[in-house]
Each structure stands twice: as structure tokens, then as C-alpha cells.
């Protein structure tokens, strides 16, 4: 244990139980206090190990099927892109590619080959409602189909974003900053379809044009906005 007076925070910090401001203050303190660094290093392992300190239950097979359907279709697009996906990229784009992995490659692949990203595993039996979105691009339409908690976005008459860019989907809850939905897409003959994922508690689904590979926060104003 540490003799530092801030050491009392180490356990709460390792458990993620400090309030935002307090956590920031403790992290600032950690930069310079060797005693607290050592304490945190000690307590982090048992805190992380808590993840397994609960009864183990098997996930349903349908969950794996759903996840693997998405993964396999994305992997297939990557493979279909073939040599294009291997094409050397400018240094800046390359770094982004390395950081974001398959999605970035997928986006690049899609631009090269011109196919639609986003394959939806439609959940059966649930009622679907359709929301018409506002689109800033003349002649384009966008609809969001919501089944249960999940949503799918469909666009028609859209032009592709500028070269080196993709469309990125965002979800927004209340007035909080938009979060990436983890979905990038481009369009073919004006059409595109993409799985937005869970929209539980989500108020708005938006689309912006972002540099290939996507962004962590929107860097342009929305082309599509849908109140879900």
C-alpha cells in the first residue's frame, strides 16, 4: 500500500468508480506519483479479473450466427477488393488505415470496386417501422427501417462523397455528441443500404461524409438526419 494520501483512490479508480472530474484529477496525479502508479498497477489485475467473477452462461447460437453473418460478408468484400485493397496509400491515409483495420480497408475496397457495403441480417417476425429521413442532397431520399431495437438505413438517388471519402453513420442520444454507429458506406447507382445496429435509446441517426476509414467524431455537417 502507498503512503500517499491519494492512494485511497486507487481501488475506486481501478474499478472505474471515480466520478469523471475526480478520475481526471487522480490520473493527473498518477503521472507524477510513483507510489500511486505502483498501487494502481497492483489493483488493476484483480479489478480486471472481476469480469470473470460471475456465473458463466452460454451465449445463444443465434447470436454467433448473427455476428458471423456480418463478419463474413465484410470479409468477403475485403477479399473481393483484391489487389485494390493492397494498393499503397499516401502516408496519412495509411496511418488511418492501420489504426482502423478492416473497416478502413473495406471502405477503400468499396470505393475501388463500387459495391455496396453493409449486409443486413433481417431479424424475423418483428414489426418494422419506416422513418423518412431529411436529406440535404437534391433528389436523394433516405429511409430508416427499425425492427425491434435494430435499424437499417436505405438511400436512393445519392451521389458518392468526394474521392477518398465515405459516408459514415452516427447515432445520437438526446443532446449528447453523436457516436459512430460503426457503419461506413458508399453508393452504387445512387443506392446504398447499411446496418445501423442497435438504436435503443437513440433519438437521431445521421450520416456525414468523412475521410476514408471514418472518423471518431463528425467532421462535416449531416447529409442525412432521421429522427428515430
Amino acid at each position, binding site marked *: 500500500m502507498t503512503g500517499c494520501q491519494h492512494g485511497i483512490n486507487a481501488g475506486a479508480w481501478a*474499478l472505474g468508480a471515480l466520478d469523471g472530474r475526480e478520475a481526471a484529477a487522480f490520473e493527473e496525479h498518477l503521472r507524477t506519483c510513483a507510489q500511486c502508479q505502483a498501487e494502481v498497477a497492483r489493483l488493476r489485475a484483480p479489478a480486471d479479473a472481476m469480469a470473470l467473477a460471475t*456465473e458463466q452462461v452460454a451465449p445463444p447460437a443465434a447470436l454467433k450466427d*448473427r455476428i458471423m453473418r456480418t463478419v463474413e460478408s465484410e470479409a468477403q468484400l475485403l477479399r473481393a477488393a483484391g489487389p485494390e485493397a493492397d494498393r499503397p496509400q499516401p502516408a496519412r491515409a495509411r496511418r488511418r488505415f492501420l489504426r482502423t483495420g478492416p473497416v478502413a480497408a473495406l471502405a477503400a475496397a468499396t470505393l475501388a470496386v463500387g459495391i455496396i457495403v453493409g449486409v443486413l441480417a433481417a431479424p424475423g417476425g418483428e414489426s418494422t417501422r419506416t422513418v423518412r429521413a431529411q436529406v440535404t442532397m437534391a433528389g436523394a431520399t433516405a429511409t430508416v427501417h427499425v425492427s425491434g431495437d435494430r435499424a437499417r438505413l436505405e438511400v436512393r438517388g445519392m451521389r458518392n462523397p468526394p474521392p477518398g471519402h465515405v459516408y459514415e453513420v452516427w447515432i445520437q442520444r438526446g443532446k449528447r455528441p453523436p457516436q459512430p454507429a*460503426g457503419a461506413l458506406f458508399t453508393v452504387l447507382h445512387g443506392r446504398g443500404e447499411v446496418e445501423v445496429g442497435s438504436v435503443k435509446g437513440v433519438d437521431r441517426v445521421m450520416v456525414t461524409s468523412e475521410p476514408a476509414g471514418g472518423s471518431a467524431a463528425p467532421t462535416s455537417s449531416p447529409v442525412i438526419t432521421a429522427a428515430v
Partner: protein
Amino acid sequence: MLSRVNPDRPVAALHDLADEDLMQLVRKGDNAAFEVVYDRHSTAAYSLAYRMVGSRNSAEDVVQEAFLSLWRSGARYDRGRGSVRTWVLGIVHNRAIDVLRRSLVHDRRRASDEGIEERFEARERTDVEAARNDEARELQAALKTLPDEQCRVIELAYFGGFSHSEIAELLETPIGTVKGRMRLGLEKMRGQLGGLAEAWT
């Protein structure tokens, strides 16, 4: 360079690879390698999510989001900072906390009326299939050796996503005491786990 997935490669060979090596393949878009990672960690991930969010549907959403984010951002995994399992479960934990914070905002207001601690204690699980995991058993046993008051604050913080001040309010205990119990409890867990705890660093 992106590597092609080799259709002739026996899947069995993937099962011999360490997680860290599988992640190298995953970041290149290898879906078969991803499937092995999923098979290895999905039970722990689902169990954690289920314990935290308390419903099968929400737990499935959490696990799906976590694994798709792993698939799409595998390059963010840094082996210098811990095992793949710790990383995966960390993503699941964060997603589940998001779900809790969204859905419990109102519940928390009346938490003390309803004895919210019970919500995060082991639930009756008649709707899910139990799975065996010796390491999980060992960790559950280690947690049980803690004095109740230490166990409770750690469970409320980790599984319930409560902050120390919320816990202090729930348990009508001073904040300093709550922090102290967290630290002592983790310290004791560490002692109980011995080498196992080291494996998590």
C-alpha cells in the same frame, strides 16, 4: 499488405494459435481467425454482459456490438497492454456500463427504496444455459472470501457501474469508507488469486 484468407488452410491450425497471433489475422480481415477468437471468449463476454444488464436481449446487443467493434478495429489491440481476453472483456464492460447509464438514470433515483444491491447480486438464471469455466469458478470463490462489505462495494462498482459516491449514498456509508473497502477488497482478491491475478496484467 492484406493477406488473403487461404481457403485450403485447415481451421484446426487456427485453434493452435495464441490469441495475440489470431488478432494479427483478424486485423487483416480474416473471418476464420475472428471466429476462433469469438468461440474462445464469447461465453465470458456474454456472462459478464448478462450479469451487468440483466436481460438476454440487452446482453446479446452488448456482445454483438463489442465483437463487431473488435472485428472492425482489431488494430487498436495492443498486446503490450494486456491479454486479448482482458481487452475483449474491457470492451464488453464499457458497453454494458453505457447501457446501464442510459437505462438506469431514473431507477437510480429510487435505488435506495428498492434495495438495488439485490439487482446486481447473482440472479436466478432459469432462462440461460450454465457453462463451465474453472477460472471463473476460482474468481467467484475468491470474491466470496472477502468480507461482505468489501464484496458489496466492489460488485456494485464493477457490475452495477455505480460511482463511489452513489454507492456511499446507497449504503449510507461515508465516501472514504467506500473507497477504503474497494481498495482493501481488491488487495485481498489479489492475494487470493496469486498467479492468476498476474495473468491478468
